[in-house]
């Protein structure tokens, strides 16, 4: 965790009408907080939920020589749910993993272009990559709670292991469990093993864990694929409740799910953006013929 010169980070961003107080210097610093002054500063920042816009500019992603994402220009509105649909191999998971810079963790993988979180380019070389992942959280296809930790320890693991102030951890952990709709079910056994829950509960635990670090954006990579239908519907409900608080981007194979939960839907094919629009429009009167073919199941 390197400490950053606050005025330097102000130079990285465009002027922002919501100035935030930097606790170290007391002066107003423009733009989002992710690379400012280390993790301890975060707790007091982030005034309103009017942040969390993501914009991709000419994003390319490669696995070695394979060109998986080709020149994507795309924006995700804050406080909304955007679904990404498309056939297998179209690059949707890859694109999403570029947003929280997980893509480059893979051997031989790289990304080019810009990913702007509230106007700040996450690929700027001065950015602390670990801090990016606290601002942009992720939930995976198969629930993956840490097996050596209790339920509560799981939820606060992101907080503990990134140096959040001790006094806050309990409250934020509880709040995250409430937000994930899991508090009532586990409040009596917070010390129990994280892996002792059902599949749907484990996934909600992972969601709580991601929420506890207070991200602005939550990426979900087919979060319900491994769950039964009832658990799936519960999580879809949860998504609807959470979108006020975090911008949600959900990759899904299930078109009906996209139709149910998303405000905006993006259709990708062969690494390119085919169509983006309000969900009702994409599913009743899509503009592009390929979108029409895909959503009606003529291919994919």
């Amino acid at each position, binding site marked *: *965790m390197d400490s950053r010169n606050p005025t330097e980070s102000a130079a990285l961003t465009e002027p922002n009408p919501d100035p935030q107080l930097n606790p170290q210097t007391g002066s107003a610093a423009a733009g989002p907080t992710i690379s400012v002054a280390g993790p301890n500063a975060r707790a007091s920042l982030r005034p309103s939920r009017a942040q969390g816009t993501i914009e991709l500019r000419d994003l390319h992603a490669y696995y070695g020589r394979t060109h998986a994402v080709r020149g994507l220009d795309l924006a995700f509105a804050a406080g909304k749910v955007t679904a990404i649909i498309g056939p297998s191999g179209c690059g949707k998971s890859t694109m999403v993993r570029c947003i*929280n810079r*997980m893509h480059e*963790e893979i051997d031989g993988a790289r990304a080019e272009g810009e990913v702007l979180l509230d106007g700040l380019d996450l690929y700027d070389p001065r950015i602390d990559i*670990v*801090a*990016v*992942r*606290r601002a942009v*959280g*992720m939930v*995976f296809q*198969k629930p*993956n*709670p*840490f*097996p*050596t930790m209790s339920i509560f320890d799981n939820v606060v*693991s*992101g907080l503990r*292991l*990134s140096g959040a102030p001790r006094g806050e951890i309990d409250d934020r952990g509880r709040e995250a469990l409430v937000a994930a709709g899991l508090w009532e079910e586990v409040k009596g056994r917070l010390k129990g093993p994280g*892996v002792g829950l059902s599949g749907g509960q484990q996934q909600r635990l*992972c969601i709580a*864990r*991601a929420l506890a*670090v207070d991200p602005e954006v939550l990426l979900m990579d087919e979060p319900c694929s491994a769950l039964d239908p009832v658990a799936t519907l519960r999580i879809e409900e949860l998504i609807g409740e959470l979108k006020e608080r975090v911008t949600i981007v959900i990759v899904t194979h299930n078109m009906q799910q996209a139709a149910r939960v998303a405000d905006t839907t993006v259709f990708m094919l062969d690494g390119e953006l085919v169509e983006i629009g309000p969900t009702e429009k994409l599913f009743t009167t899509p503009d592009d013929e390929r979108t029409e073919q895909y959503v009606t199941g003529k291919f994919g």
Partner: protein
Amino acid sequence: MSADPHTLLLDRGNLERRRRVNRAVEAVSIAAAVLAVAVLVIVVGSVFLKGVDALSWHFLTTPTALFGEAGGGISNAIIGSAIIVGIAAAMAIPVGILVAIHTTEFAPPQISHPVRFVLDILNGVPTIITGIFVFGLMVEGDKQSAFAASVALAIVMLPIVARTAQEVLALVPGSLKEAAHALGIARWRMTVRITIPTAAGGLITGSLLAVARVAGETAPIILLSSIVGQGNLTDPGEALASIPYFIFQASESPKPEAHTEAWAAALVLIAFVLALNVVARAFYARSRNRMGA
């Protein structure tokens, strides 16, 4: 064309022959398994039978008698062995686990593959050679010491600890590391607080197995710490008694009581090794459960 379609399913003479072959193969494999188990039972059994007479509380708590006298025990050998093996473990286990962590978590394949290979070779080096090497390094021109024996044993333990640790760390599911990354947890923190605890059972197993292996290593001891009597010495700078060396010496003695004492010492040693193996297995099972969840 027959009227009954089920004739295709009827036995055409093959069935009996197949059954016989099955039973024969089964019998042979059972025999092999029985043989393997029998060997261990016979070894442990004969050690027990031949040594149990000399085994007593007195035997375990009295140091070895001086030249020619009877009525001694192996307390100094036990303590000496404990010190030698203990120091060796203190050196080899942390280094072995760290090497494993480096190769599985941080090193690129260009480094981790050669390191693995080197460790495998080291594993195969005969212990007498390791003993001679340490002899030339530390004893020649100086004197024998338990510490030198520990160094040699540590060299023998290192590849065992490292390789089993590598295997176990590699078994930690990638999804856990992904989750940790996605939470913005720094790499080393993830390794210390998540990867290692998850693999802990296996790491302990590897360590215990390594200890069990070197507890009875004799060649380095002969070269580096070959002493039998002289009371309860505990200074690692000096040569200390050890159980393997006691067995070696006692078995060469002309007196039959000495032989029995050798068997008794062997019994102590093998009981220790067996106990370690059982505990190691228990930890391994616990670790498997954690990973599978």
